[in-house]
């Protein structure tokens, strides 16, 4: 899998119009000499047949050398890793916001199907998946920062600056979770053990919380693995709008700077993150559900 990912990432470099080496040198505004192009091509590993290029590139990547950003001159890996905490903080807060919205709404929708709360949940879910994240971000900036002045406009300074971006990111995720939690709660509530728990005279909130919800939680964890890619994609937009010093914004800046090596490193690392998160989710499911372990 990772080998395939590396192939695609490597191939991306060859999508650039013309010779990447020449483009990188031209970005300084000076017409490069043939010798300079040759040298750059060599440092980029762009000389020789494709399979040898790939081999060189792969061995460098395996030694955690993703090349250097041409605009800052610093190693791409360092640059990305230094922005990693900001992006993960935002992503985790986004997930928390999504769950804070989705868990109560999802449970209530399942408890009272086709009633007002269920319909509200349905409308909310539709709005959540249809809402342009970039527009929501602008609205949040306007109302939260410009009009009411409750939160800082942009950047990452203190806890309050985290509120608006997390809301923007979490809102978009919440819809799918509401639908999923509702569906899995409905399924769990129909099971025999719920009847048994009720029959033993357990309090209703205990039945719902300890028996139904815990069993409904597992699909949500699996969904997180599916959604992590979308979350990373969404964070690109949110980070750009809120000037959040994360990886997504760095990648967008790299695109405008034609910093191809950074783009390449970014894609590779994001794909690795997605694979890793899915691995963790799988292990988490194993730990949470003994039934899967038995299989």
């Amino acid at each position, binding site marked *: *899998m990772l080998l*395939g*990912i590396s*192939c*695609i990432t490597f191939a*991306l*470099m060859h*999508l*650039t*119009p013309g010779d990447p080496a020449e483009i990188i040198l031209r970005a300084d505004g000076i017409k490069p000499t043939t010798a300079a192009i040759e040298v750059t091509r060599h440092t980029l590993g762009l000389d020789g047949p494709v399979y040898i290029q790939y081999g060189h590139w792969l061995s460098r990547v395996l030694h955690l050398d993703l090349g250097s950003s041409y605009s800052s001159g610093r190693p791409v890996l360092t640059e990305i890793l230094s922005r990693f905490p900001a992006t993960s903080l935002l992503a985790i807060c986004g997930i928390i916001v999504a769950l804070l919205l989705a868990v109560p709404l999802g449970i209530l929708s399942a408890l009272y199907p086709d009633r007002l709360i269920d319909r509200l949940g349905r409308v909310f879910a*539709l*709005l959540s*998946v*249809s*809402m*342009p*994240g*970039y*527009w*929501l971000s*602008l*609205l949040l*900036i*306007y109302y939260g920062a*410009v009009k009411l002045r409750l939160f800082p406009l942009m950047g990452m300074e203190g806890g309050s600056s985290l509120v608006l971006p997390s809301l923007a990111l979490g809102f978009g995720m919440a819809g799918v979770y509401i639908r999923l939690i509702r569906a899995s709660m409905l399924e769990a509530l129909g099971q025999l053990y719920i009847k048994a728990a009720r029959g033993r005279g357990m309090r209703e909130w205990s039945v719902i919380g300890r028996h139904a919800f815990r069993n409904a939680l597992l699909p949500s964890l699996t969904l997180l693995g599916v959604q*992590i*890619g*979308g979350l*990373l*994609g*969404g964070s*690109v*937009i949110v980070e*750009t*709008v809120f000037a959040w010093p994360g990886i997504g914004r760095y*990648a*967008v800046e*790299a*695109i*405008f700077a*034609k910093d*191809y090596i950074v*783009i*390449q490193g*970014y*894609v590779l690392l*994001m*794909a690795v993150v*997605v*694979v890793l998160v899915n691995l963790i989710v799988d292990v988490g499911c194993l730990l949470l559900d003994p039934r899967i372990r038995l299989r």
Partner: protein
Amino acid sequence: MITLHLPKGSRAALAGGSIVLIFIVIGIFAPYLAPSDPLQIHMDHRLSLPSWEYPLGTDHLGRCVLSRLIYGTRTSLYCALIVLGVVFAISIPVGLIAGYAGGKVDQLIMRIIDVLLAFPSLILALAVTGMLGPGPVNLLIAFAAVWWTGYARIIRGMVLQIKERDFIMAAKAAGSSHLQIMVRHILTNVARPILVLASMEVGTIILSLAGMSFLGLGAQPPAPEWGVMLNDSRTYIQTAPRLMLFPGLVILLVVVGFNLLGEGLRRADGRMHE
């Protein structure tokens, strides 16, 4: 008063379908509906409030906001249609061949698709656009290149199921060629579920395309495009917040329309199978 008693799914499909239809009409008749030229700059009318001449006011270059929104409908629908067209042109043959041929061909194709699917779609699209250079055409190429994989996989799955049915056996016995079977018997049977699936995804495609333009990677100013308009409005968020209101609202509405339509069609389709 006549009341329509429709099942739930079709009510959503009807509501969504109407919204979508309105936008399609607006897109087709944009030149007749728009009150002014969406590109005409009036520096003496910059950031003016809504008036009879400019029903939704003007932007920072004095261009009519309503006209830009109307022409933007055209851009968004066109682009989504092109992306879907290219996606189908790739995914249908690939899915058909993988499912029908089976064996090593199938394994190879599916392996490639699995790897491509490991990349977050928006991030891969971002990277492809980054490598090709920002611009509307490159963005469409990037989207098509990223989006076809999911469809190919689903089509392959459907082909695998249909392949085993009796009428395929009958067609084989009647001496139909592989191509005939694939096109006439299998494709016609997967067409409807694929269209339902596509209607569910148009909203997402429009959303993402406008998002890329918002980032400056797709349609470029002065093109009348919703994402571009939103991006332009960022600078004036304090002085003219209405500029960011309308494009976002329009995107939300059209995406809600497509999502309702897709969801309704899916439920109706499910009932038909039952």
